[in-house]
C-alpha cells in the first residue's frame, strides 16, 4: 500500500476546513440540522459565529441568547443548518429558555447536537452533556475555553473524556478560532454516520429506580418502535413531566419519523412560533 502526499492531505481535517463555506443566513435546502447547546457563558455564540460567519453579538454574559438563532454553513459537499439554542444548566427544569432548548433537541431531532462545554467547569457542564445524551446519541462535545483551563493550571484530557462519554470530544479555543476545523470534521462524521458511537448512559444506582425505568422504557419501545429515545421518555414519564405526557397524547413525539426533512422543518416552525 502506498500513501502519497495527496492522500495524506485529504485525510487531514485541516484540508476540509479550507472548504468551509460560511453561508450566513442563507440556508435553504440544507442537508443536515445541527443544534448548538451548552451551559450559559461557555462560548456557544462564538462557535456559532465561527461556523456561520454571522456576527451575532457575543457577550461575556450568562444567558445572552434567550431565543434561537439560526445560520448556515457548507462543508464537504453538504449544507448544514446550525441552530444556536439558549444556554441552560439542565434540561429538567421549567424555565422558558430550558424548554426552548429541550424541545428543539427532542422534537426538532437535529442530526447532530454540539454541546459546548467549559473546560474549567467540567463537572457542572457534563451534567448537561449527559442529559442531552439521554435524548440523542448524535452528540459532539466542543471542549471550549481550553486556554482558560490552562491559565488556571488545569489539564483536561480530551481523549479520556471522549472514551468515557463515547462521543467525539474536540478541544477548542473558539475565541481564537482554534479547533474549528476539528469540530467541523467531527460534526460531518457524525452527520454522515461515519462515527460509531457507544454513548455513555447515566447509571441509576438505586435498584428500584433502575427497575422502574427499564420497565417503562420496554413498554414505550413496544408501543413506539420508531422513537429513538425511549429510555429518556421513560424517565420523564416517571418524573411526571406534563409536557412530555401531553406530547405523547398529541402524537407529537411517538409518530414523528426521523429523516423526513420537510416535516421536521414544519415542526421547527411550530416550535419557533410558540
Amino acid at each position: 500500500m502506498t500513501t502519497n502526499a495527496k492522500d495524506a492531505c485529504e485525510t487531514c481535517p485541516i484540508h476540509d476546513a479550507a472548504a468551509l463555506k460560511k453561508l450566513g443566513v442563507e440556508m435553504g435546502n440544507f442537508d443536515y440540522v445541527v443544534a448548538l447547546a451548552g451551559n450559559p457563558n461557555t462560548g456557544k455564540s462564538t462557535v456559532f459565529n465561527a461556523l456561520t460567519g454571522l456576527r451575532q453579538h457575543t457577550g461575556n454574559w450568562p444567558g445572552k441568547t434567550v431565543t434561537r438563532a439560526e445560520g448556515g454553513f457548507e462543508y464537504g459537499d453538504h449544507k448544514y443548518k446550525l441552530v444556536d439554542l439558549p444556554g441552560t444548566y439542565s434540561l429538567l427544569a421549567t424555565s422558558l429558555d430550558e424548554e426552548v432548548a429541550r424541545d428543539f433537541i427532542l422534537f426538532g431531532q437535529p442530526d447532530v447536537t454540539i454541546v459546548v462545554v467549559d473546560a474549567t467547569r467540567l463537572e457542572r457542564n457534563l451534567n448537561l452533556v449527559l442529559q442531552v445524551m439521554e435524548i440523542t446519541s448524535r452528540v459532539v462535545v466542543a471542549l471550549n475555553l481550553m486556554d482558560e483551563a490552562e491559565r488556571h493550571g488545569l489539564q483536561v484530557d480530551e481523549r479520556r473524556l471522549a472514551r468515557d462519554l463515547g462521543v467525539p470530544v474536540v478541544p477548542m479555543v473558539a475565541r481564537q478560532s482554534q479547533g474549528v476545523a476539528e469540530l467541523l470534521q467531527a460534526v460531518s462524521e457524525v452527520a454522515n454516520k461515519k462515527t460509531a458511537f457507544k454513548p455513555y448512559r447515566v447509571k441509576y444506582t438505586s435498584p428500584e429506580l433502575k427497575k422502574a425505568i427499564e420497565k417503562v422504557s420496554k413498554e414505550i419501545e413496544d408501543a413506539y418502535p420508531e422513537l429513538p429515545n425511549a429510555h429518556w421518555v421513560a424517565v420523564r414519564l416517571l418524573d411526571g413531566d406534563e409536557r412530555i405526557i401531553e406530547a405523547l397524547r398529541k402524537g407529537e413525539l411517538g409518530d414523528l419519523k426521523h429523516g423526513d426533512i420537510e416535516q421536521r422543518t414544519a415542526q421547527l416552525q411550530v416550535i419557533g412560533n410558540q
Partner: protein
Amino acid sequence: MTTEKTNSLENILSTAQSLRWEVGVDFHEKLTESIYTDAAQIADRATTRPKEKPRFDFDRTLDKIITSKTWGFPLMLLLLMMVFWLTISGANVPSSMLATLLLDTGHPFLKGLAANIGMPWWLDGFLIDGMYMATAWVISVMLPPMAIFFPLFTLLEDFGYLPRVAFNLDNLFRKSGAHGKQALSMTMGFGCNAAGVVATRIIDSPRERLIAILTNNFALCNGRWPTQILIASLFIGALVPAQLAGVISALAVVGIALLGVFLTFLSSRFLSKTWLKGEVSTFSLELPPYRPPRIWQTIYTSIIDRTLVVLWRAIVFALPAGAILWLGANIIIADISVAGHLINFLEPFGLLLGLNGVILVAFIVAIPANEIVVPTIMMLTVLVTGVTGVGEGAGVMFELESGMETMALFQAGGWTLLTAVNLMLFSLIHNPCSTTIYTIYKETGSKKWTWVASLSPVILGFAVTFVVAQVWRLIETLL
C-alpha cells in the same frame, strides 16, 4: 392517532404513575443525584488539577473589590461617569465636522442642484428641506456619541463587568419583591428596551417576569442616551465653567440613569405589593471569569451591530418624519400650519408640565423611535419661532454650527433650565417606543398588560414633570 395506540399510551402512563409511587417521593432527587454523581466521576477522571494553588488569584481579588459592599457601588458610578465623560467630550469635534459637511455644505449643494434642474418648490422642499435635513441632523447628532459610547459599553460587557453589576444590584431587586435576574434584563434594557423585554425570558416565575417586562422601560435605552447627552451638555454643562462642563454634564446623565434604576425598584416594589403579589424566588447568579476584551473585534462588532443598526433605525424613521414635518409646516389652514395648530393646542398643557407644545408634539412624532425626539424639536422650534438663520422656509431642520447656536435656538423657543430638566425627565419617563410595545405584546400575549406597560409610564411622566414644574416655579417666586 389510532385507538390502539391511545390505549397502549394510557397503559404506559398508568404503569409510570404506579411505579413512581414505588420508587418514592424523592424520585426527582434520586434522578438528579445519579446524573451529578456520574458527571463528577467522568470530570474527575479527565481533569488533572495542579498540586499547588496559584499564589495570587487575579479573578478572585478583583471580584472581592468590584462586588464588595463598600466599593461596589462607588466603582460602578465612577465607571459610568467615565464612559459618559469620554462620550460627551469626545463627540463634540466629530459632531460639528459632520454638521459642517452634511448641513453647511451638503444642503446648499443639493438646493443648488434642485434649482438647476428646475425642481418645483414643493418637491424640493419635501425632499431636501424635509427628508434630507432630518436625516442629516440625525446622523451628525447621533453618530459620534454612539460610535464612542457603544464600543466602550461593549468592552465592559466583554470584560465581564456587567454580571458584576447585576450581582451588586441583586439584593436590591430581591428587596423590591422582584427576581434578582431582573438586574440582567434591566442592564440589557440600557442598550435596547425591546431586547431587555425579550431577555426577561431567563426569569422562571411568570409573576416576576411580568414585573421585569413592565419596568424595563425605566432603563434608559440607546434612542434616549443621545437626547440626554445633548441636553445635558447644552444646558447643565453651561451652568459651570468650561473646564468642568464635561464632568458636570456626565454627572447629570448618570443622575437621570440612576433615577431610572430607582424608579425600576420603586415600581417593581409597587407591583409586587399590589397586583403582582407573590413569593420571591431564589436563584444563583454565576459570575463569569474575567476575560481580556478583544479590543478590535469588540469595536468592529459594536460599530456594526449596535451603532449602525441604531443609526439605520433612526434614519428609517427620520426620513418619513422629516417629510411629515415639512408637510405639517407647509399645509396652511386658517393662516396657521397644521403643525402650528397642533402645537398651539398642546401648548397650555405643555407649559403646565414645564415643557411646551413643541416638545409634546415631538414625543408623539417620535413614538416609532425615540432617536428623533431632538431633531423633531429643533425643526418644530424653527417653525414656531420663525428663526431662520440662512433664510430657509418653515419646517427646515436648522443649520447649526455649534452648541451655542442650538442654545440660541432653544432660547428663542422660550426654553429655560426648567424646560431642559423636564425634557430629560420626560425622556426617561414616557411610553416605550412602538417596537418595544409590540415586543411586550408578543412576550406577554396580553393586551391588558401591554396597555399598562404603555400608558402608566406616560402618566407617571406627566405627574413627575408637573410636580417638578410647580415646585420649581414656587421656589423661583420665593427667591
